């Protein structure tokens, strides 16, 4: 297969961009699968408009899918693509700025019509002239070639053109030496009821592949070979964040030995969790599509009250609606897991873009003193572990727990070493079955708000004989849980609720330094999906001899007990976040540490290069771009100086 024009690369970034109706997400998803099967490590970044079918050919209707794959560990979807596949002028215009100088543009000339150029606001055809001189351009009529390839199957023109994405995928599979068989299998399965469509798509795929073989004879098209990554031995699959959270919740409920009740309401990008769980009834998972976000969480609390593990999921606006009910779960001390797949805000904001701007909302966003533990997943695979941890804390501490992910994690895919359920320590839920105290006359007494050594109250299922009692949102007397508005009692109960949540820090591991020294000149402190770019930026900077460490915090509330001491060991603390500096404020508040923000709210994940620059700036070193380093920096991706130094 490999020819003499084959080159080897450690890692490659490819971006497929087209109209939202062009099937770019599907193309990217299948390329991902094929890449995973080829044994590369990978990370993906789907980037699509909020509209289901935005007007064809428009700039805002462009849908893109980026994949970074390589023979070494891949932590991010990559900064600048090496290859941009542009299915129309709008896709080229929107994505061109991101393309690495010297990178390859593959464009479908069949779509570069006057009408489409107008829609993309091009005065002249960019494929003609020298506007693209910085890049290699491979422009040919993919539309025509596709029509030609599927001719024998007698499809209408519209249907035939729908196979364009498979033609393009075929070309990409050839370029990167990926197997076609898994895609053939997938197409046969997908179009089982319409075999002619399966055949047409396979023909288009094979034609794209064959075109690569032929076209390499001349021009810029080269085959690139990326070796498989040396991973830990074991069984692997690819997983998206939404799948991973769903599976983690199922595993968590099993480890708690509880049936799971999931109350949800459709919202982007959280709905995928509801879809996954709805198919898992045999695992004692019950899903309920409620009438609204409020009913979704209230039904989940009702299920927890009745003895199941209640779970609800949403994104920022929906989480805001659930706030009052979270307060009730905190007040009545019932277990509950709330998944927040963050997106750009405020209000409806950027439904399909990523952001980490719900941290304040997660930690503080309720009326009253309403402490609630918060865990943040760093990647699709990590979300599995975090979901289990959220279930454990909820059940062991009788508390709602928020699990933060974001649009990036929810949609992105990465290879995942399939865990063995037997490796996880169970945390079976305990239900009170008889009265738990004695009154002054030495008679058995029920104290629904007695506390164990962790500060947790007993879980009492309705239906248990002899343990009838009442709970609610009104302040309750210590022990008995009867209504009690008295000053001393409210003070004591407020303190008890806080102490219980603070005490969760005793059950989580000490904060470690995931890369670098335990003390030094600079530490980058991150949480959530910024893990990948921060890790890579710190790794590259350390390779250049810079004294920088990476601390990644999973338990963002309560924080690990040693975190304050750890941070004090560094001269400078830099907190990169996809918000205006929320975690930075939390760290300053908790530790009086001079944490400095590095913020980005463009709806796009951090690029490694911009973080490397920030590291250099903090250390007073020249940026890699200034010393002609290996990394190309795209100015448009840099955070503004104001954002970095408010």
């Amino acid at each position: 297969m490999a020819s003499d024009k084959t080159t080897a690369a450690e890692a490659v970034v490819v971006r497929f961009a087209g109209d939202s109706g062009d099937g770019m997400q599907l193309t990217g998803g299948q390329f991902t699968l094929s890449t995973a099967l080829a044994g590369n490590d990978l990370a993906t970044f789907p980037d699509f408009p909020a509209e289901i079918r935005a007007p064809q050919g428009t700039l805002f209707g462009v849908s893109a899918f980026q994949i970074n794959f390589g023979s070494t560990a891949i932590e991010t979807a990559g900064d600048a693509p090496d290859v941009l596949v542009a299915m129309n002028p709008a896709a080229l215009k929107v994505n061109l700025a991101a393309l690495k100088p010297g990178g390859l543009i593959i464009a479908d000339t069949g779509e570069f019509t006057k009408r489409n150029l107008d829609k993309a606001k091009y005065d002249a055809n960019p494929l003609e002239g020298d506007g693209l001189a910085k890049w290699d351009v491979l422009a040919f009529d993919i539309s025509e070639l596709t029509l030609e390839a599927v001719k024998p199957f007698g499809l209408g023109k519209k249907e035939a053109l729908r196979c364009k994405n498979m033609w393009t995928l075929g070309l990409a599979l050839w370029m990167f030496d990926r197997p076609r068989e898994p895609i053939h299998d997938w197409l046969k399965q997908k179009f089982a009821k319409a075999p002619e469509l399966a055949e047409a798509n396979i023909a288009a795929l094979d034609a794209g592949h064959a075109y690569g073989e032929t076209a390499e004879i001349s021009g810029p098209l080269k085959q690139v070979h990326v070796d498989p990554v040396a991973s830990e031995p074991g069984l692997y699959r690819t997983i998206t964040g939404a799948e991973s959270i769903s599976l983690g919740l199922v595993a968590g409920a099993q480890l708690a030995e509880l049936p799971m009740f999931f109350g949800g309401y459709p919202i982007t990008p959280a709905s995928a969790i509801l879809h996954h769980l709805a198919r898992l009834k045999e695992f004692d998972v019950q899903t309920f599509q409620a009438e609204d976000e409020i009913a979704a969480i209230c039904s989940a609390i009702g299920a927890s009250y009745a003895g199941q593990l209640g779970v609800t999921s949403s994104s920022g606006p929906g989480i805001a609606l659930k706030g009052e009910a979270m307060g009730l779960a905190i007040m009545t001390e019932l277990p509950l897991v709330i998944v927040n797949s963050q997106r750009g805000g405020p209000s409806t904001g950027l439904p399909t873009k990523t952001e980490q701007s719900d941290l304040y909302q997660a930690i503080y966003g309720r009326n009253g003193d309403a402490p609630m533990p918060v865990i943040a997943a760093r990647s699709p695979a990590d979300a599995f572990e975090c979901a289990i941890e959220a279930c454990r804390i909820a059940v062991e501490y009788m508390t709602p727990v928020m699990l933060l992910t974001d649009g990036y994690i929810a949609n992105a895919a990465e290879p995942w070493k399939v865990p063995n359920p037997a490796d996880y320590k169970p945390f079976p839920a305990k239900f009170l079955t008889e009265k738990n105290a004695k009154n002054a006359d030495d008679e058995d007494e029920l104290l629904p708000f007695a506390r164990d050594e962790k500060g947790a109250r007993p879980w009492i299922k309705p239906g248990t004989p002899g343990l009838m009692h009442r709970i609610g949102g009104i302040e309750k007397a210590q022990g008995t849980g009867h209504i009690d508005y008295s000053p001393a009692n409210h003070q004591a109960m407020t303190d008890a609720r806080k102490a219980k949540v603070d005490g969760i820090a005793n059950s989580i591991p000490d904060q470690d330094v995931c890369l670098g020294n335990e003390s030094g000149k600079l530490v980058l402190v991150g949480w959530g999906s910024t893990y990948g770019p921060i890790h890579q930026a710190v790794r590259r900077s350390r390779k250049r001899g810079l004294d920088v460490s990476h601390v990644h915090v999973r338990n963002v509330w309560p924080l690990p007990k040693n975190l304050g001491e750890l941070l004090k060991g560094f001269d400078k603390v830099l907190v990169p976040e996809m918000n205006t500096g929320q975690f930075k404020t939390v760290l300053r508040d908790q530790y009086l540490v001079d944490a400095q923000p590095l913020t980005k709210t463009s709806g796009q994940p951090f690029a490694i290069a911009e973080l490397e620059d920030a590291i250099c700036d903090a250390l007073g070193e020249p940026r890699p771009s200034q010393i002609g380093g290996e990394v190309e920096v795209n100015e448009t991706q840099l955070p503004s100086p104001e954002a970095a130094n408010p």
Partner: protein
Amino acid sequence: MNDMTPVQTTLKDWETDQEVRWCPGCGDYAILKAVQRTLPQLNADPAKTVFVSGIGCSSRFPYYVESYGFHTIHGRAPAFVTGIKLANPELDVWMVTGDGDGMSIGGNHTMHILRRNIDVQILLFNNEIYGLTKGQYSPTSRQGTKSPSAPGGSIDRPAQPCAFALGSGARFVARGFDVSKNLPEVLKAAHAHKGAAFVEIFQNCIVYNKDVFNDFAAPKGAEDQQLWLEDGQPMLFAKGTKGLARDVENMTLKVVDVVDGDWEGAGVMVHDVKNRTLAHMLVELPFGPFPMALGVIYDDPRPAYDAVVAEEMSKARSAKASNLGALLSKGQTWTVDGTAQDPI
């Protein structure tokens, strides 16, 4: 309601040790007693009984019933009930709400619990006023109700809870009032209905909306304005001297005089609890020209949502083995051999 082992209890067994904190003379006391009197007659088991409420005067109810109780948040009781019943369909759940809780802030949830048909008894205490927040007009207040929030009298048109319930797809709709001796019978019928049973109970708020229902619900002297409905019985009122007959021309009902008990001769209709069209007419009858329709207006069960879900769940569990390891490794997988290498 649920099939459960009969348990012998008395009214006393359903009283808690908590001091009841409604205003002296509040209609809620009478409703509480009616419920506590009814539960022993149903052979209800306190351990399997759950009272769930929202917020408002009515929603303090669970604290006074010796069973399981959950006083939740404003308007959301139906959603909590739904979760409880889906988690454990064996529980016998009563939901207590008010006109503000159930028709205003929680109107959405009231609609959905009814259309889904969760197996629960819903008691909506209608006093046509916000009591706990000190007397603002409510979504059921009559136009012109003077209140701190509408000193010149309210302008909005009132909602009609039973019409709302029918419109939402309720399969059981009944009415009663706080001091009525018939209330326990209405509650028993609601309990016997499998599915969501909606009961509107007119309740006298003696502080902010005193005696607003006196024309038909005064303890004495208003009996002639009450039409107590009974399935299969003629729709008679005013000691049998009047009845409701079809007004065919206008496709509605009319009041007719019944002479010497000859209701058939007068054309009085026989009540049919399964006649949905009739139910719609009965709940919409304007009071004044017509009596107040009370008792079981509509009762035509359909499968309860929670029962259907429980069946689906049990089928799924017996049809497929639940192997977590197999689930985790579903889809296309690949195996990596050899020794691990530090990726950094």
